[in-house]
């Protein structure tokens, strides 16, 4: 009885500890965001001075919007992300379908090569990519930012696994019902892979929305800079550091992404759980 009680006590204590640790990590992770929100909505005087009754203001956002061409940056980032998303969906889907459902010479070797590419750190390729883009004459253009990312080894791998897990009966039924090869892909494989596309799309969008080093290197002008680069220039010392305005700009640029994640988070987590279980 007492041993049982002790065991339960220990279990309860363990659970409490886990909960506390989860809260601690959560708060630590949230702290910068909370600071940014606090700072962005209050006058500069309250940046390092916490007072619950400080006056709220939207002036920082107005100031930030007027201080730099954020509208242009938004446009550039949106073009970049939609372009990469569309290209990767098309190219990775076709490649994954070929790897998952066709027999051809050298298929496995080719697939291994693609997997090997996953192990190459992207930063190593910065210089080489720059030289290639320069040779094509595309330096300082939006397509130049997108070009190295139009196909993705991760995307091919993920979709191939998804397609392979779809029972072959579905494909055969569709073929008997009159579908061509591409018809089967369009009517069976892609619709059945929808949750995976959603998760993959979200990861892709957030990655390219946040991508910084490569756009920083390849762009030089307002017309091509994406948000991340624009923001960093905006926040650099030569603008004079006003934390309130910088935080407002940061919230503004990451806002759409945050909203997207909040909207899709359930489907997002579920689909990754499911791909894991398979």
């Amino acid at each position: 009885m007492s041993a049982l009680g002790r065991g339960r006590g220990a279990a309860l204590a363990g659970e409490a500890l886990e909960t506390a640790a989860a809260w601690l990590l959560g708060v630590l992770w949230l702290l910068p965001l909370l600071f940014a929100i606090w700072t962005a909505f209050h006058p500069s005087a309250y940046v390092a001075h916490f007072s619950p009754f400080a006056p709220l203001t939207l002036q920082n956002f107005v100031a930030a919007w007027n201080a730099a061409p954020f509208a242009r940056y938004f446009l550039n980032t949106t073009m970049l992300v939609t372009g990469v998303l569309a290209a990767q969906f098309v190219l990775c889907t076709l490649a994954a379908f070929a790897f998952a459902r066709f027999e051809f010479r050298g298929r496995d070797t080719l697939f291994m090569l693609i997997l090997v590419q996953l192990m190459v750190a992207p930063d190593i390729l910065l210089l080489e990519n720059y030289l290639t883009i320069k040779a094509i004459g595309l330096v300082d253009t939006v397509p130049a930012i997108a070009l190295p990312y139009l196909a993705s080894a991760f995307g091919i791998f993920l979709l191939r696994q998804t397609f392979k897990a779809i029972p072959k009966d579905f494909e055969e039924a569709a073929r008997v019902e009159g579908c061509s090869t591409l018809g089967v892909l369009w009517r069976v494989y892609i619709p059945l892979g929808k949750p995976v596309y959603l998760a993959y799309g979200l990861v892709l969008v957030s990655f390219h929305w946040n991508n910084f080093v490569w756009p920083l290197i390849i762009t030089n002008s307002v017309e091509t800079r994406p948000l991340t680069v624009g923001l960093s220039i905006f926040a650099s010392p030569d603008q004079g550091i006003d934390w309130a305005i910088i935080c407002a700009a940061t919230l503004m640029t990451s806002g759409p992404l945050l909203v997207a994640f909040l909207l899709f988070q359930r489907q997002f987590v579920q689909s990754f759980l499911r791909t894991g279980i398979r």
Partner: protein
Amino acid sequence: MAQVALDAVTKSWTEVPAVKSVSFVVPEGQLVAILGPSGCGKSTLLRLIAGLEEPTSGRIEIAGRDVTGLPPSERRIAMVFQSYALFPHLSVAENIVFGLKVRRVGRAEREQRLAKVADIVELAPYLDRKPAQLSGGQRQRVALARAIIAEQPVCLMDEPLSNLDAQLRHEMRVEIRALQQRLGMTMVYVTHDQTEAMTMADTVILMKGGSIEQLGPPAALYERPETTFVASFVGAPPMNLVPDGDVTRGIRPEHVRLGPGGAGDVARRGTVASVEYLGADTIVSVSQGEHGRIAARLAGATTLKTGDMLDLHWSPAQESLFDRAGRRIARRTPELAV
């Protein structure tokens, strides 16, 4: 007119062919069952007809056209899969009209045909549901509806009832057969369940090791098995095979009688090894030592117990005789000549 005709169709992946030079024809409006144990090549044969596999050699005709090199979509067939292969992302209605949509049949005609078919398979109240929300029997009906709505000359069925429980299987058996006859469909039906084959088919093709063992109406397979394999596969319990010198005597359990028998009868003696009471009749299995067992079907219940000594006999007129290779020997008993 033959709706399906196979001529010396062979399929091999390795040295050993999965289907060995198979030929048969399916007349219009008939249901032909391809029966056999697992691994006999019956599913491969159906996939060859469907065009999901390519034959190594031979010729396949459907509705009077040579379709040997054509893809499944151009063979004018409908198919019901063992797993039903219902698309989980589509509703029942969308699943049923899937093929019509692919083949660009107009919306008005689609709706009209859907309403008709949904009525036939009694699915009208479920058209908006997803397959996951249906019972096993209902899913089977959706698969059936998808095959019917295509109005193709030939319908292929790959063990369509194997995922249903016994009760439902019986109902669907009757229903599919009724539907097939009412709509005049030509059907090739693969099964490993002899009850399905015997009760539904006009013609049964029994396969073994990739070739046809016997082809004929169900009664012919039951009454005049061409080989010992057919004799031991068809019937529950199967035909008794009693070795006797150079020949094997085959006798159905219902033709075995109790008692020593009279002149001209074949007689055997043994001990009762098991008694199976089935309600309407009882199967008594009599051990012959090293000569195996003989099953006898007795009407109603019996007082016999395991271990009882028992005399059995039967009339040679009801026997099938097989040679050493297991092939049927033409009967030479005098009483037939009378």
